[in-house]
């Protein structure tokens, strides 16, 4: 091959080299979704006395029954609803929050590492920001919009990333309601005893009953309470699986968000055959790991062959699920799902479900 024939390849390789360099270093133009967020957590309205950690009036803690896996982080969550305002809960699965609503979630790995913040601004858009707690102590300040990779060590090995604003949006803009983990099922008093990593509701937590009693939910109370009932399932294990998938996967994999074209619905909705069963059980996966063809999202009775379990059990970037927010497999949830596929979903059960 002479030099002339090598030129196109050389040019392409050079381009690729530039591209690789750009990929490694460029921060690009991050969307300015944190614009307007205060520089200090203390100025977001969370605390009455930031140094003492005293919450501001109207800020309430809550504890969802199916938590999101975050590589073993200990979490605390708070919400502020503007005085006199109510949540539009006419769709009990997709609450819409009044302007001025604020949420905070604190992540700890042996020490406080970050507190994430979202606020519904006057124009109706949601603002996202996260505040990093210095390892040496002191107040939390806003992280760069691009996030912080490897911000702290975790017990499970991989280091924890403080998310970019874009990462916040990738998860929170996957369904009509931008808030995850704060809805009828998550705030229900009828807690699932098998929910992985669940924490019991704490004294003073804001829950569904209080929201209803205080008139903070607009919509039919009967419908809201029905949505808060335990997940309809054929076994206790299936209840926990469907609830876990709802909390960890349903934010993106649902029928109403940008990924609805995938036809995979892991968001739980009462009153129909669980969408996870309808759209995954015996259904061919669009993503075929390892050059396979015909692999099923859930292969009844065969966890190893089920793409859903394979992706939950991987932390190789293009394969892993969820695709962001975690670097360590949730072994508890994975084992729960694998047992469900292997044991509960015997082929006879699957056939009955598909009818």
């Amino acid at each position: 091959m002479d030099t002339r024939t090598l030129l196109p390849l050389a040019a392409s390789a050079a381009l690729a080299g530039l591209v690789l360099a750009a990929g490694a270093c460029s921060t690009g133009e991050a969307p300015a979704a944190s614009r307007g967020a205060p520089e200090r957590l203390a100025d977001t309205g969370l605390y009455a006395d930031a140094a003492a950690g005293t919450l501001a009036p109207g800020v309430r803690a809550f504890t969802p029954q199916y938590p999101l896996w975050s590589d073993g982080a200990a979490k605390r969550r708070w919400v502020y609803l503007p005085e006199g305002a109510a949540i539009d809960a006419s769709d009990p699965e997709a609450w819409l929050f009044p302007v001025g609503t604020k949420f905070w979630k604190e992540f700890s790995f042996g020490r406080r590492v970050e507190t994430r913040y979202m606020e519904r601004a006057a124009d109706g858009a949601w603002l996202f920001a996260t505040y990093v707690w210095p390892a040496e102590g002191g107040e939390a300040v806003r992280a760069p919009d691009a996030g912080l990779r490897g911000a702290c060590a975790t017990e499970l090995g991989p280091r924890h990333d403080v998310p970019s604003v874009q990462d916040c949006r990738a998860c929170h803009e996957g369904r009509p309601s931008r808030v995850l983990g704060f809805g009828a099922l998550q705030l229900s008093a009828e807690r699932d005893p098998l929910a992985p990593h669940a924490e019991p509701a704490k004294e003073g937590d804001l829950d569904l009953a209080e929201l209803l009693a205080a008139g903070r939910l607009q919509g039919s109370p009967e419908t809201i309470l029905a949505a808060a009932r335990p997940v309809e399932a054929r076994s206790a294990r299936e209840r926990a699986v469907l609830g876990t998938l709802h909390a960890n996967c349903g934010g993106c994999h649902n029928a109403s968000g940008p990924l609805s074209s995938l036809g995979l619905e892991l968001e739980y909705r009462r009153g129909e055959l669980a969408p996870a069963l309808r759209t995954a059980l015996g259904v061919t996966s669009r993503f075929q790991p390892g050059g396979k063809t015909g692999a099923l999202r859930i292969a009844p009775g065969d966890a190893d062959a089920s793409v859903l379990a394979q992706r939950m059990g991987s932390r190789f970037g293009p394969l892993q699920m969820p695709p962001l927010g975690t670097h360590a497999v949730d072994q508890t949830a994975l084992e729960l799902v694998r047992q469900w596929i292997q044991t509960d979903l015997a082929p006879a059960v699957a056939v009955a479900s598909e009818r």
Partner: protein
Amino acid sequence: MKKTDLIVIGVLVAGAVAYAFSPATEEARVARGRYIVSSFGCVDCHSPWQMGPNGPEPDAARYLSGHPASLVMPDAPAAAGPWITSVAASMTAWNGPWGTSFTANLTPDDETGLGKWSEQDFIDTLRNGRHLGRGRELLPPMPFPAIRNMNDEDLASIFAYLQSIPAISNRVPTPRPPGGAQ
């Protein structure tokens, strides 16, 4: 001038102004998309290369259809010293510290390409560097850190052009992890 004449002129002027400031027509979008795709190097990786009479060149019959499913790649050679990246002669399979990546099928085939994608899916993917804007990360050598800086109109034009080219059924393999670990 009669009142009706004034109305007619007004309507014509308003129409001209509206046309001048309206979004590009579909035809103009496709043309701009073709221009960007051909000048930004998309073809270099998303069409498999083959040896032709003038040396290596993209296979026109597989234009922008990504790494051929029929081209099953052996494991990539081990990296040595500063040589951390290797690339197949087809230019559609790349190996490096991220594992092995295969270039995507950009044709409008419903099952294996972008046929079911919306314009917003495409923009979100390139803007965020994630599949459909919120899924798995795009891998090197995809230059999304540069492409993400394009404006929406340019990204929409690329999408319009890609939707106008012939659909080719070609299921590109999924990426391989580095060292075979899952």
